[in-house]
């Protein structure tokens, strides 16, 4: 199937380099008519791009990265003639990490700018406030940077670029369990936020279903600075795996104290192991040696169109490596363009249908689509398994070895 897609893309006569980077789609019900140019498409296609560029310290660099990725995609799409003579015109709004701003701008985009679709939203709360408006008015949305649950549940016009993080564990953890032959696990999680406690619950259920017995469960809160009591209890339980889901800011603290504790269990972490808070902290990254995690994307990933994306991004940005948010923005806009091309129409409901049929999309996050009938609106990529080795994140496979 994947190979066939690429062949079709090649047959469409696109430059092969571009094809790998930009992705394409195969759909069974909508006839693909890209080759015969986009006569049904208007000269400019307005797409709303509401993102949180400012407003809260937590989103520093998030919205701006996503916007850079979106612009990067728009430039590629427009200059390559991907949509024939039609050009995408992104209508950008900074929703300032504010729910009311997100709602107002969404109304404006739909009723005054008459956008055909929306590629946007950086924060789950803003989206949850504004998304239902788009759903009600029947405007398809590709949500860019939401990691929380409950996004696609808003309705059938809602698609997400970033998967629900519990899906990452469903992808990686079974592989980790198999490779380590683990039979017991201890859990350490932050009990005072829904995100981390939800991740703990999902992971524990998953691991127990794989036959991994729970031998210890310890919690910390945002106020916890010293974890000796928890670590001693975990050490006494002597688990094969130590599954950690705590706030990113507390991960270095966990790692450093873990390093002193004498616990030898295999560390199963989360995306925070790849974040600057950990990778930039010599003591923490040293203590994280051999730690495993699954992440949606790493710059070094070789999946799908990522290598090409990275090299093109570097060429366009003075050799700078793209970050995760750049990748998300890029894929989200390319996916929307692909749906428009496949629909050969700016009719919102036809774009929606085309989105739900995208498969074999070769993007920065891998070769994937949104066509899983069991999880409508959700991307089908699984993630990238990584291991911390000598202060760096390296791709992990079941044959990777690591010494502490």
């Amino acid at each position, binding site marked *: 199937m994947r190979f066939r897609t690429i062949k079709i893309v090649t047959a469409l006569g696109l430059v092969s380099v571009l094809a790998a980077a930009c992705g394409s789609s195969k759909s069974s019900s909508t006839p693909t008519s890209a080759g015969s140019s986009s006569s049904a498409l208007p000269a400019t296609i307005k797409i709303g791009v509401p993102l949180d560029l400012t407003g809260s*310290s937590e989103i*520093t660099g998030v919205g701006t990265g996503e916007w850079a990725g979106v612009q990067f995609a728009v430039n590629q799409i427009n200059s390559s003639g991907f949509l024939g003579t039609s050009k995408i015109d992104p209508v950008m709004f900074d929703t300032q990490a504010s729910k009311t701003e997100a709602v107002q701008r969404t109304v404006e985009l739909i009723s005054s700018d008459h956008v055909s679709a929306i590629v946007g939203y950086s924060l789950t709360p803003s989206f949850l406030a504004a998304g239902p408006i788009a759903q009600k008015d029947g405007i398809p949305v590709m949500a860019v940077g939401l990691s929380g649950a409950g996004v696609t549940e808003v309705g059938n016009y809602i698609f997400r670029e970033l998967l629900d993080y519990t899906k990452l564990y469903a992808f990686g953890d079974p592989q980790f369990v198999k490779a380590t032959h683990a039979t017991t696990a201890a859990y350490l999680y932050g*009990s005072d936020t829904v995100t981390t406690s939800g991740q703990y619950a999902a992971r524990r259920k998953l691991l127990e279903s794989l036959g991994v017995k729970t031998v210890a469960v*310890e*919690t*910390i*809160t*945002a*106020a*916890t*600075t*010293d974890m*000796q*009591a*928890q670590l*001693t*209890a975990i050490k006494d339980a002597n688990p094969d795996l130590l599954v950690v889901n705590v706030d990113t*800011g*507390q991960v*270095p*603290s966990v790692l*450093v*104290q873990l*390093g*002193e*504790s*004498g616990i030898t269990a295999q560390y199963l972490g989360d995306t925070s192991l790849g974040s600057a*808070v950990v990778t*930039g*902290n*010599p*003591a*923490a990254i040293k203590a994280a040696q051999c730690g495993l995690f699954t992440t949606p994307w790493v710059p070094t990933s070789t999946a799908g169109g990522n290598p090409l994306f990275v090299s093109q991004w570097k060429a366009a940005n003075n050799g700078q490596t793209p970050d995760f948010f750049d990748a998300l923005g890029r894929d989200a806009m390319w996916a929307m363009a692909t749906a428009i091309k496949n629909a050969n129409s700016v009719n919102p409901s036809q774009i929606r249908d085309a989105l739900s049929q995208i498969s074999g999309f070769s993007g920065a996050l891998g070769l994937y689509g949104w066509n899983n009938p069991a999880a409508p609106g959700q991307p089908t990529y699984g993630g990238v398994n990584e291991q911390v080795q000598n202060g760096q994140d390296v791709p992990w496979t079941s044959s990777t070895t690591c010494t502490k």
Partner: protein
Amino acid sequence: MLQQTVNGIALGATYSLLGLGVTLIWGVLRVLNFAYSQFIVWGAFGTLIAIENHVPTVFAVLIGMAVAGVVAVFVDMTVMQFMRRRGTSEFALVVATIGVYYILSSVAQDRSKSQIETFPIGGFPHGSVDIGSTSLPSLQLLSLVISVAVMIVLGYWLNRTRLGRATRTVAYSAPTAELLGVNSRAIFALAVFVSGCLAALAGIFNAADSSTLSYSDGDQLLVVAFAVIVLGGMGSVKGAVIGGLALGLVQVYTTLYVSGVFSNAITYLLIVGVLIVRPNGLFGVREEARV
């Protein structure tokens, strides 16, 4: 079990250190200083910047302590002195400390761009030390030793030295102390400086324990400090020590036997319980006899 008791004592010792600094300012100046939270942060940042500039760790720690001490004295000599001289109420003084907290906090936030910074711990002790059947991370052992040393030195200083007696006299009545030849403003400054140094020490150990530092790290520690002195008795050195140890042990045992989720709730329940039985805390002294 024994190991967990050792954990509790080690945790409690750092709590005591936090309590001592606050109890000192409270005892002498009679004001709950919310800016203390930022003295913790500024002290740790002082050390961080010194380490980044290749100052040996021991000196970097001393620099951090001096930074926090000087900031604390500066705040006291400007804002607080000004308000005291105008005869402002205690409540207004507390509000002023909150204002100072925000100013100091935003400076620290700006310097760190709201990010969690890496606190280099290469120069701090690492590994762990075996004590009988138990083991304790070296860093915690060091913080335990330093906390105990600080308690002893502070206790000796307050009770056995001329300057310490003068501090207790100023705490009791600054006008009387003045009549006896004590420069009460200098004593205020000294107490505030020492308190700032202790704040820094607590902040540095906390940062080293997690190898991270954020401008808001002091907030949680301030809550702990207040809990310690409320439990131990406001203004009492002995109370701060015992209160800190009690708090550390209770938190560890709760985590162990109940759940980490309840560790804070049970801690505060305990404090409320103690206050019902002993409104002045475990070692509380009456209003007229603090420090």
